[in-house]
């Protein structure tokens, strides 16, 4: 264990990974509360709510400054409100239930914390097991049918796609000769159908191939733009997936391929295209 510099990231716990110090945010408001309880060496069943609520808000403030966990901010705020509510109830005279037992305003929160804590424990136990595909590998299963030959699957970033798109644009004809009057309208939907038809019964096709004309003629820029959008749309509809091979050093290299999607989306692409528009 190392400690992070308090000024740099008091809102995160630090852990050492083989790749150096890795910062990670909390898994949620309950995780943050457990962390506060741990660092203050508090008894989970007897939390000084006022103090913990104050620290909780401080952490929230820092997290907000770092723009962390914005997508879950609502959950953190809800917990802040719960803490404030419990704090206010702690100031009131002791409540009793129907049987005359004292009601601890913290009881429900404590129950949730304990519940979460034990799931967190088994979660890390599960994570430490020998996992198939990470620690152990089976002999008999054919495994997922992956890309053939030496081509390993990598995720293609939007930048590589845009690069391929740009080089297609460079090859393309001018954006409309001055004398040209007839304007051919191209729709993304048309191009989606064209891309899928170009694939025919094949499983893969080069991305470059769908961006250029079959007869080697120059393709109008509008067609290229529409085709590019069509490929993105087909990927979104899961009718296509985009791949690139890796070289010996594990760096993506070579042509980008479009591969037919794996499920019904791929076979029912006409329906998908019609439904998407």
């Amino acid at each position, binding site marked *: 264990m190392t400690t992070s510099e308090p000024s740099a990231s008091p809102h995160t716990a630090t852990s050492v990974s083989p790749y150096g110090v890795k910062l*990670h945010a909390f*898994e*949620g*408001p*309950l*995780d943050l509360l457990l962390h506060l309880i741990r660092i203050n060496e508090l*008894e*989970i*069943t*007897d939390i000084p709510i006022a103090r913990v609520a104050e620290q909780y808000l401080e952490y929230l403030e820092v997290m907000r400054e770092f723009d962390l966990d914005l*997508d*879950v901010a609502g*959950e953190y705020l809800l*917990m802040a409100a719960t803490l404030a509510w419990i704090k206010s109830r702690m100031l009131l005279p002791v409540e009793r239930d129907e049987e005359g*037992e004292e009601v*601890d305003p*913290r*009881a*429900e929160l*404590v*129950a*949730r914390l*304990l*519940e*979460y*804590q*034990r*799931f*967190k*424990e*088994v*979660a*890390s*136990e*599960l*994570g430490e*097991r*020998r*996992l*198939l*595909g*990470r*620690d*152990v*590998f*089976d*002999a*008999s*299963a*054919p*495994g*997922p049918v*992956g*890309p053939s030959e030496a081509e*390993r*699957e990598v995720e293609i970033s939007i930048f590589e796609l845009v690069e391929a798109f740009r080089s297609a644009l460079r090859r393309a004809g001018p954006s409309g000769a001055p004398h040209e009057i007839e304007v051919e309208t191209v729709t993304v939907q048309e191009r989606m159908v064209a891309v899928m038809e170009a694939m025919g019964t094949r499983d893969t096709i080069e991305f470059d191939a769908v961006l250029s004309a079959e007869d080697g003629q120059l393709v109008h820029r509008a067609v290229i733009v529409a085709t590019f959008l069509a490929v993105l749309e087909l990927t979104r509809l899961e009718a296509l997936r985009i791949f690139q091979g890796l070289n010996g050093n594990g760096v993506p290299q070579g042509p980008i391929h479009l591969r037919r999607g794996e499920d019904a989306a791929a076979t029912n692409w006409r329906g998908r295209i019609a439904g998407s528009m």
Partner: protein
Amino acid sequence: MDRTERRRIAEALVLGSPDPISVARIADIIPYCKPAEVRQLIDELNTEYVKQGRAFEITEVAGGYQLRSLPEFAPYLRQTLKVRPLRMSQPALETLAVVAYRQPATRAEVEHIRGVDVGAVLRSLIERKLVRIAGHRDVPGRPLLYATSKRFLEVFELASLEDLPTLRDLQELAPEGALVIDTDADPAPSSDVPEQVAPSPE
């Protein structure tokens, strides 16, 4: 057919089956073989492997046997993968844990325990076939019920759900008398109570 021969048949069955092969199935295939003997045969094979210093062993997963490489060879095997090695994030593990112990559970029940939105995590677990949709709960809104899959047992090397690590007792976490925890307040049904599950439309 002597013992060695039967052991070799069991070995061949485990090696050649595309999925984990159950004790019952092996007992069916080997003539005059009882389930207890199958377990002995597998134990003998594993003992043999250890003695010979083999790089694999027979593991019991998802109600069957499967031949798997030993963990020490993972760094080498990962290089043969066509896809990235399996990765399990903390949110994924926590969500899986809640689903595993509380199944069938609704999304709201999982979210109540974790205190965060689990929509995206659940979707990715379903995509990875570790979690499946197990029907609807027959309450207003008919929320979907989630459960772990057979694949989950295979990936986590669990023979069955009973093999899950034991969830610590709440009483053990909360010292006696420190606080009365109202377990009835827990919205999730206890997993040992059979639940009426409406069949999934799929």
